[in-house]
């Protein structure tokens, strides 16, 4: 939601699968902590999956969208593909060498690894990631 003026500007949108495994919950915890630390802002993947119009338009208009899946099942990826949003910054946590299990106890070291990977992915320059010229992004707000 919009908590501050022009809050959508150049903020990194973080979408986590938040699935029911250690890696799914790692995606969620990393997104929560990166939001608290100001790196980006977690957004509701369920709202996008439910095709609620405000959520769908938000992800289409966001300049940088980082998508985190816990495993190769790719649930978050499938949701984005379903609404025809290209994956430009995509992370699968098991690709980082973290094994998936049903233990929901998260290790601090794994959370930090995922956070570092998200930052790396977000900085990645994609050849196909030409900036949208439609409209004017960024805040420049001086009144918040």
């Amino acid at each position: 939601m919009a908590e501050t003026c022009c809050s959508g500007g150049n903020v990194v949108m973080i979408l986590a699968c938040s699935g029911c495994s250690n890696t799914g919950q790692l995606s969620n915890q990393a997104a929560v902590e990166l939001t608290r630390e100001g790196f980006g802002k977690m957004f509701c993947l369920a709202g996008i999956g439910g095709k609620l119009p405000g959520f769908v338009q938000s992800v289409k208009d966001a300049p940088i969208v980082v998508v985190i899946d816990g495993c190769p099942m790719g649930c978050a990826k499938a949701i984005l593909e379903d609404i025809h949003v290209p994956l430009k910054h995509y992370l699968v946590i098991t690709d980082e060498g973290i094994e998936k299990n049903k233990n929901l106890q998260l290790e601090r070291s794994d959370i930090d690894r995922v956070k570092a990977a998200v930052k790396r992915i977000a900085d990645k320059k994609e050849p196909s990631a030409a900036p949208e010229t439609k409209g004017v992004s960024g805040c420049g707000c001086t009144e918040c």
Partner: protein
Amino acid sequence: MEIKILGPGCPKCRQTEKVVKEAVAECGVAADVEKVTDVMKIAGYGVFGTPAVVVDGEVKSVGKISRKEDVKSWLNKQGGCNG
């Protein structure tokens, strides 16, 4: 036609309102343009950021100043603009 500008009142929100009102005037359509500044009401639209534009209940743009030609195309799709 009902158009809502979602945003708490920052410069980009005001610029968006200006663009929308100009587009409405140039199209010559009858439209109510309303600013929504209440954060909880804005949250109800599920938008990631502001400014956002809602035309007849449909979220058209989020987190950026809309271009006038885009606003006109939205009005046109609603049967309200020939320009």
